[in-house]
């Protein structure tokens, strides 16, 4: 296919604004799949995978479009993960595009993720086609959305497509707009190969499968290639496009997008954003923007029962085959024993991984409260990264500490301004912008310490605005901060897994609150349990859980001994899920008690 017949684009949207439905409709409208097959694909995806031998990512597809103008076009619709945790991956996918479809819900207007995604698209100078979706709904207000687009986002909106993906409204018009308003790729097919690797996943039949866009030059089966970031060489075994059925081709020319299989065994060898070139005639300038993604949020993962340690280690090993952005290293906690310190791109990513470990690998996990990475700068100028509060111990000659900040965007009905200003003040936020998007809808922008977000910010935000606020953030920078380590002692013994780093101004309230929450969550035991919150040797708060004095059933249920035993067995199962720290039995939830503090007690 000639370059001027190709259109490479992504769909970007706030969650639930209709991105997937629109993608499905485009696949249907271009005949990529028939309606019946789309259903089959969902239902039988496992079988399909086996049959074709590769995993299909349904949303990154090559579609054939026959325009009423007589021309024939190849659309490469490139999937993006959309969530803030995966911003870097999104930006690499967008780097493979010349345009985006910016989908906005006609009933809700612009939301936080709309802005975050649009900012990324603008950084790449992409053509933007605004799509105002769900115009069929009675509460749709497309004119107001147009105004928001123009006034707030400076996006030309007079020729926005009015659509209802669900009802098939505006789809034909949209496809014509893609042809007319998104430019074809440019790139010299005769130059040395320069190819963007923008997605990769592990397939148990074929090894690593990567998605690439050829920016310059051309790529053919049998070529010896070099992945420039990792310096690894491979030979191209198979090239193809997903229609969404996999269709093999012999080569890609500049501007084309597709999958590549090259006998790559480990996901780790394929870095998102890397440049693929020929071994024999490499390009002299790799594509810009490559970076090694670093985990932002860390948490300790421990097996509830010690004999599951090996199982957890194997599970992490397998899981990282599929998700190279999770980092893990063995660590030992005096309270919890052997486990792993794991790094994640963000909170959602952490949730996903934790759930997969429990569901797919059947490991019962105890998770410590998440922490961000802090920097300690010593008097000699050495920079030490702290991904676990207990690593602060033993560092001498500390000159200063720094904590990561993010830029957070909140969009919500104006009646909640007061509540949100209160919340962000408590979270040490600095307001940098306030703007009305429409009468009654306001946008607030803050610089916030990332650790304040990690500790339950999102749920607080939602509950403070009855679910109406949308929130997004991006990493800003590290800033010097007055930070201290808050420790928890149970019966005088420090429980390292409960330590956390927080700002000095907040430590007193947080310590008191945390001690109280722990008192609620640790069940009474046969002896008194004293909870202390301390900074260094200074005790900030003390709570006492009184010893259990009487716990005896008067009756043994007549002769129904089975019932009594089953009752005890159930209790015992609950007890086994607790961690014994010293003599004290602590339920899992207690290790996350800090997430339920409000620092106001």
């Amino acid at each position, binding site marked *: 296919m000639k370059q001027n017949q190709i259109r490479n684009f992504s769909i970007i949207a706030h969650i639930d604004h209709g991105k997937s439905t629109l993608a499905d409709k485009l696949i249907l409208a271009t005949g990529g799949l028939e309606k019946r097959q789309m259903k089959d694909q969902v239902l039988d995806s496992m079988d399909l995978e086996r049959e074709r031998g590769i995993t299909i990512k349904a949303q990154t597809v090559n579609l054939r479009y026959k325009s009423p103008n007589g021309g024939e076009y190849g659309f490469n619709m490139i999937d993006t993960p959309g969530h803030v945790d995966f911003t870097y991956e999104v930006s690499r996918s967008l780097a493979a595009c010349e345009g985006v479809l910016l989908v906005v819900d006609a009933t809700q207007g612009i939301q936080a993720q709309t802005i975050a995604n649009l900012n990324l698209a603008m950084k790449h100078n992409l053509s933007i086609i605004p799509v105002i979706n769900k115009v069929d709904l009675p509460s749709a207000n497309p004119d107001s959305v147009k105004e928001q687009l123009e006034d707030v986002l400076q996006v030309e909106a007079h020729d926005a497509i009015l659509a209802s993906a669900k009802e098939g409204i505006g789809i034909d018009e949209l496809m014509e707009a893609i042809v007319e308003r998104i430019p074809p790729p440019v790139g010299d097919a005769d130059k040395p190969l320069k190819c963007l690797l923008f997605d990769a996943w592990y397939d148990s039949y074929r090894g690593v499968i990567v998605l690439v866009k050829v920016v310059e030059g051309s790529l053919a089966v049998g070529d010896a290639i070099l992945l420039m970031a990792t310096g690894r060489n491979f030979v191209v075994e198979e090239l193809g496009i997903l229609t969404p059925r996999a269709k093999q081709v012999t080569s890609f020319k500049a501007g084309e997008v597709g999958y590549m299989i090259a006998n790559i065994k480990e996901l780790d060898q394929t870095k998102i954003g890397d440049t693929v070139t020929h071994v024999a005639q490499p390009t002299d300038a790799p594509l810009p923007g490559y970076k090694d993604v670093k985990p932002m949020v860390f948490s300790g993962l421990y097996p509830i029962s010690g004999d599951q340690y090996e199982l957890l280690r194997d599970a992490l090993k397998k899981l990282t085959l599929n998700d190279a952005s999770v980092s893990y290293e063995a660590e030992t906690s005096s309270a919890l024993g052997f486990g792993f310190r794991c790094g994640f791109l963000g909170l959602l990513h952490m949730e996903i991984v934790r759930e997969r470990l429990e569901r797919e690998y059947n490991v019962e996990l105890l998770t410590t409260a998440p922490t961000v990475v802090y920097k300690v700068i010593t008097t000699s100028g050495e920079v030490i990264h702290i991904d676990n509060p207990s690593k602060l111990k033993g560092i001498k000659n500390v000159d200063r500490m720094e904590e990561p900040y993010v830029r957070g965007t909140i969009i919500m009905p104006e009646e909640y301004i007061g509540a949100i200003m209160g919340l962000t003040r408590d979270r040490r936020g600095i307001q940098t912008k306030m703007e009305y998007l429409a009468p009654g809808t306001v946008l607030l922008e803050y610089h916030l310490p990332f650790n304040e977000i990690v500790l339950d910010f999102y749920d607080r935000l939602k509950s403070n605005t009855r679910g109406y606020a949308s929130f997004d953030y991006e990493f800003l920078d590290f800033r010097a901060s007055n930070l201290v380590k808050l420790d928890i002692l149970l019966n005088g013994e420090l429980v390292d897994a409960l330590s956390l780093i927080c700002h000095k101004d907040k430590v007193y309230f947080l310590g008191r609150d945390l001690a109280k929450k722990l008192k609620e969550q640790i069940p009474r035991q*046969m002896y008194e349990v004293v909870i202390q919150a301390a900074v260094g040797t200074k005790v900030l708060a003390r709570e006492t859980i009184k010893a259990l004095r*009487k716990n005896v059933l*008067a009756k043994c249920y*007549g002769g129904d*001994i089975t019932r009594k035993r089953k009752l*005890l067995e159930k209790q015992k199962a609950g007890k086994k899920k607790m961690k014994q720290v010293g003599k004290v039995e602590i339920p899992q939830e207690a290790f996350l008690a800090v997430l339920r503090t409000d620092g106001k007690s």
Partner: protein
Amino acid sequence: MKSIGLYIHIPYCLHKCGYCDFNSHAVDPAEMERFVPALLSEIDHGATRIGEEREVATVFIGGGTPTTLPPQALETLLSHLRQRFRLAGDAEITLETNPATLAPGLFERLREAGVNRLSVGIQSFDAGELKLLERVHSVAEAHETVKAAQAAGFYNLSMDLMFALPGQTARRFRKHLETALALRPEHLSTYNLTIEKNTAFYNMHRRGQLAMAAEEEQLAQYQETLGVMAGAGYEHYEISNFCRPGRECRHNLIYWNNGEHLGLGPGASSYLGGVRSRNCKLPARYIREVNATGRAIEFEETLKPREAMGETLMLGLRLLKGIAIDAFEARFKTSFREVYGKTLDGLLDQNLIQLDDNRIALSPKGLFLADSVILEFIT
């Protein structure tokens, strides 16, 4: 010759009390007429389950309230039992009753039919407390019932009392104990009120309409009970049970020693040859099933060794003298220390159990925390 205990469940009461989660149902004369023949059939079937050479050492007719049945029916039941089972010459034959079913001549007829032990559900000697508990008898009827039983020749009589009732104090409960002791029972059971699921009290408690006594108050009343009963010369032999020397409830000792028993009647449980089973609970269904098949078992499980061991401790530790370790080892053909060594060390460390050469028992401290101690032996 191995002996066993026999339990007969009569599932009817004049009224279902608010705290009660036992298998009891409001009296229904028409159904009760069909119930008695069904029970007799199940007795026939039950006799074949244990074989002829086994002797029945104890019989316990419980409920419900067995005396909701006409005296005639109880007489038939007892004579039928004698026909079908080999009752030991000194068999303990207990019958539960409550003061609301007192009738002239009743106790004489029961005595005549062979009942030699009565267990009377008194619960309280305070009119207000009886009302709260939804008991349908008066304080006067409680006194009359005990006196009538003694006059009829019952010299092995037990009373039930409940403590830690909402608003009750240790002083008030002490008075109830003293009133009970003045009636000179051979045996006394004192039960701490507990809130069980599927009871009226449970729902009231959840709605905040019923306040449970605080833990400290429960403890105080229990300790008060121990003091009063010891002062009166009663032996504290099980967590909730006291007796004059030699007057333990032999039938319940079979349970606590994890011995074999056969249960007949709706919801009754059996433990025979390492298998625990339980009958269906609803009287109407019980009658239907017995009439069709001779039996009404709805649940059965064969215990794994470790489960049987756990049960032995769960039950045996309720006895103040605890468990004989040599008997345990002979029964399970294993070393007690080997199975529970680590658990024992932890409990000894916290002073919750006493361990001598051949017995394990709760310590005075462990007595109040028996459930937590027992939990340690459950897997």
